[in-house]
């Protein structure tokens, strides 16, 4: 007995009617991919490449011209399939007249949740995204980062098994970005599948298990992240507190072998982000174990 993939997109085609003269525009051209349950999948590509359209087709917001999409085996054009999906749109605006808490309750009720479960979940999510203090303030008064966070909370309100994120960190400051990334990883550790689109490649690299590269409606490359970005014929070894003599020994050992080339040694560079986060501490958060960063010392 096999569990259905979390997401299955099969030969998806989407045409839009251009202005009358120019005929149709094919936004998505026979795109196929699958996402296994518990994976974090990133769809990357330039603006206008068809990422959003693919996402919308998956969520039933647009009807495919051809092909099919399924979520956990259910046809995406049926309302049923959205039971297990949480969606965070790009630049989300929610109803500005509602407060943070009211927003979560609204979406929770739409998913069929009731009190007291809904109340508990709302409080839990507000904690998770660190908006407990602002929960009674109207969304009209939220900053962009806060909107993003409430958006994430709303996407999670019904405990979905699949989370779809469209540009989750676009326009968010580094601390916020970091928090969102940590959240995604935590969700993965809970077994939730995450499907995200982004053009911020650096950030995709930090969270995704698999990526697909889409350009002009076509999926041009797909696979495990590690496999894709690994420079296959190079090896990296990172040491802490290594004395210079040890480095010399290793160097002699390596170059003694035939065909091995010593490319580089020295201090690895941390990222600017790492520096930033080191200098400017994030606000204290009750949960979340610290995540080891590449290059931080």
């Amino acid at each position, binding site marked *: 007995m096999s569990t259905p993939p979390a997401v299955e997109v099969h030969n998806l085609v989407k045409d839009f009617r251009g202005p009358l003269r120019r005929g149709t525009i094919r936004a998505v051209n026979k795109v196929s991919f699958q996402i296994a349950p518990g994976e974090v999948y990133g769809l990357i590509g330039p603006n206008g490449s068809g990422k959003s359209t693919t996402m919308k087709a998956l969520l039933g917001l647009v009807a495919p011209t051809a092909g099919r999409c399924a979520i956990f085996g259910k046809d995406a054009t049926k309302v049923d399939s959205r039971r297990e999906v949480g*969606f965070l*749109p790009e630049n989300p605006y929610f109803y500005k007249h509602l407060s943070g808490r009211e927003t979560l309750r609204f979406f929770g009720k739409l*998913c*069929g949740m009731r009190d007291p479960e809904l109340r508990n979940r709302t409080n839990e999510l507000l904690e998770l995204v660190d908006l407990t203090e602002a929960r009674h303030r109207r969304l009209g008064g939220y900053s962009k980062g806060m909107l993003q966070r409430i*958006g994430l909370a709303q996407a999670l309100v019904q405990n979905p098994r699949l989370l779809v994120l469209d540009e989750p960190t676009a326009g968010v400051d580094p601390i916020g970005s970091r928090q969102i990334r940590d959240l995604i990883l935590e969700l993965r550790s809970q077994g939730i599948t995450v499907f995200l689109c982004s053009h911020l490649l650096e950030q995709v690299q930090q969270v995704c298990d698999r990526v697909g590269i889409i350009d002009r409606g076509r999926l041009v490359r797909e696979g495990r992240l590690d496999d894709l970005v690994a420079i296959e014929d190079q090896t990296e070894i990172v040491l802490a507190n290594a004395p210079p003599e040890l480095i010399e020994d290793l160097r002699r050992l390596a170059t003694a072998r035939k065909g091995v080339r010593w490319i580089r040694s020295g201090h690895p560079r941390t990222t600017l982000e790492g520096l930033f986060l080191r200098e400017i501490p994030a606000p204290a958060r009750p949960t979340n174990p610290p995540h080891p960063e590449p290059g931080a010392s």
Partner: protein
Amino acid sequence: MNQHPARTPFFSPRRVMILAGNTFTQLVRMKIFYFLLIFIVIAIVLNFFRLPHTVGPESVGAEELRSLKSPLIGVMKLFAVILGIAATALLIPRDLEDRTLYTILAKPVPRLDYLLGKFLGVLALILVGLAAMAILLNVVLHFRTQEILAERMALADGMIERGYWTEADRQGERLEVLRHGPTWSLQGALLAVFLEAAVIAAAALLISTFSSSTLFTVVITTLVYFIGHFVADGREFWLRTSSLGEDLTVHLASRALVVMFPDFRPFGVVDEAIAGQALPPSVLGALALSSFFYVGIYVVLSWFVFSDKEI
């Protein structure tokens, strides 16, 4: 743990109510109710209005009550119709623009529920607003009617004393005054105002599913409103004279065009109720039935268009 039922129901009243409630709250927080304030001010001013007359026909008391009723009910009608058109025209384009629509439809919410929820939210707002104004109207009308009744009864007493009138005459006079006051027929007329607003709101809903622009929807719906009233008048002219041996297709086409617009004629009973006529419940029943029919057709058509709509 959250319990997911096996299938999402095609139509869930609970969900519709949630959406309706949300729409209602949204509209209320848009400070629509300043309109009510204007109404209150007008009502108070009109209460002190006295028709200039020295000697004149005895039915002047009724005219004063009419002069109270018609502007107030006019404001109510204006409120209801404007809200029906503008609020409905606002909802879907705004959700579209704000992308709130994406978030909602990404949840297991069928499009029908969404439409119904929006629509019922607007209707709820109109109903509540009208109810509040109706209460105020009835209160003001009641006091004014009692004043006029007291005057007329004093006159009647004098006439009876002098032997001109019988008790039956006095009763007749009393009934005559009371029928211009707050009667059940008047409440029925207020209900008719609501029904008319519901019909035009449903039309706005339908038109808004075609366009993504609030302004466009408002303009077209307003046109439909006036044409619906005007065509009601011209309808008979058309239907009678259009069968003058013309080309069959032209004849059918013009007929079809005329009947496409909603027929607002029966709602004119509001006018007569203001003038003091009695409105039998059967008439209201017929009006209600007619309105349900219009609303039903428009909502179903809206759903039809909206299901396909690319967002």
